[in-house]
């Protein structure tokens, strides 16, 4: 366990080194957030919805802030497989899946927190109807933080399945791009899941992609009442177990047929 913890810590420290690069990314992300909110505001002016506008703006900001949690991947693994230095990783007295799981988790967590803190501070300062509103209730906030942590576990498990495809073919850019796009759409990054047709939402919110950010955001904005939170947490936990199980099996099969390249 301690070995995994130190792998996690090292990766976190590495990601923390790129603080300078973060600023440009944050400004870009804020600009995109403002554009999206302007569009939704104009749409709302024409035909107000049952769900208040402030919930949509909060949703947009939280999605933009934790964007990095969805789209951060470990480019080293692909290189390691291509060059054959994956052999060193196989020598470690650790489970290969577990080792990469904690690494990707550290990367996603640090990368998104570095961006989320300044962005959310900025979004809080914006006036109502543009900015991020306060959480619906104290209980909602606590539940949503728990949900976010589970979402992180869930997205790391998903990422490891994507990486499993990388191990199969040497060039998996196409596959990776496809899976990532599916995630962006079904996680609510391109369009808030709350704006999908209501009948679709009943299905989409049960999919693993909705557990990453959509579920915690709904707990934050109060769209999911705090009394319903245990049910949401249970769904998230179930998906983590399923996805990690699939990933673990997938990696074990891959590891058996892995060829060490190079020399």
């Amino acid at each position, binding site marked *: 366990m301690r070995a995994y913890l130190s792998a996690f810590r090292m990766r976190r420290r590495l990601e923390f080194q790129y603080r300078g690069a973060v600023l*440009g*990314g944050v*400004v*870009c992300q804020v*600009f*995109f957030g*403002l*554009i*999206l909110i*302007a*569009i939704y505001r*104009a*749409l*709302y*002016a*024409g*035909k107000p*919805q049952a769900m208040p506008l402030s919930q949509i703006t909060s949703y947009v900001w939280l999605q933009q802030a934790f964007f990095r949690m969805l789209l951060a991947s470990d480019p080293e693994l692909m290189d390691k497989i291509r060059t054959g230095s994956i052999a060193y990783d196989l020598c470690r007295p650790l489970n290969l899946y577990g080792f990469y799981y904690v690494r990707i988790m550290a990367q996603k967590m640090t990368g998104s927190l570095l961006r989320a803190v300044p962005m959310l501070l900025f979004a809080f300062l914006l006036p109502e109807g543009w900015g991020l509103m306060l959480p619906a209730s104290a209980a909602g906030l606590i539940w949503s933080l728990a949900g976010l942590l589970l979402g992180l576990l869930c997205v790391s498990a998903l990422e490891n399945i994507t990486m499993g495809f990388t191990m199969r073919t040497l*060039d998996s*850019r*196409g*596959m990776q*791009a*496809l899976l990532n*796009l*599916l995630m*962006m*759409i079904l996680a609510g990054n*391109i*369009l808030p899941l709350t*704006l*999908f*047709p209501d009948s679709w939402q009943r299905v989409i919110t049960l999919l693993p992609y909705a557990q990453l950010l959509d579920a915690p955001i709904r707990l934050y904005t109060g769209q999911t009442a705090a009394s319903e939170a245990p049910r949401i947490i249970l769904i998230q936990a179930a998906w983590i177990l399923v996805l990690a199980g699939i990933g673990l099996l997938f990696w074990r099969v891959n590891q058996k047929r892995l060829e060490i390249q190079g020399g």
Partner: protein
Amino acid sequence: MNTIRLYLHSMRMLIRSQLQYPFSFFLQTLAQLVMEGGEMLAVVLLVDRFDHLNQWGAGDLYFFFGLMSVTFYLTECFGRGITGNFPYLVRTGQLDTFLLRPRGVLTQAMCSAADPRRITCIAVGIVALVIGSRLSAIQWTFAKTLLMAEAILCGCILILGLFMIEAIFSIYSVKSIELVNALTYGGRSACEYPIDTFPRPLRVLFTVLAPFALTLHVPGAVILGKPLFGWPAWAAWVSPLSGIIFFFLIRLCFRKAMRHYRSTGS
């Protein structure tokens, strides 16, 4: 004329070279389709929920979305040398070889790369244009077709100009600055919707500074029969030219930057 022949020849070779890896090409093209399809899906779902945006109905919104997709991805497809590769050319010092040849740097950069994977994005844009024009019952005339062609052409030139800002920055600072692209990609995402969607600061930004509205929205609105800003119809023929003016202004800066260019060496 010789330059154009040279360009077309390079494009043919570049596209053929990418088709040498058919499976990888197919998957990456498919990924582009999903990406642009996802963007289109967002517009469809928004229209489904909200019916209209200001005075624009469903068909009008699809039409504007298609206009932007076709324009932006045509530029990325055929201008890849400037839209993607230029900072790389500077960083690796490959730009030096361009300076030795008897052609302009921009011409050679344009000839250096193509991105045929974008073809599916363009296809999505065309589908959006067709659906939009059906739903909005546009009466197509020769003049309207010509106006749309002008808008798309000037839009492409404008987007090339915007990407050249990044090229200029890459000459001064070898580290690439993603911030510069906020205007370009932000402009694409925003101006998929007509300009009157936005509050004043954004409207000024995308009309005066990066004139997406003048090149695409003003003619688009005239084609749809709902002129923007209450401008007369002839204005739609003049306003796209702002894209060309923008391009030439940036080109002046580019000339200046090239004089500053120091090779990264070795």
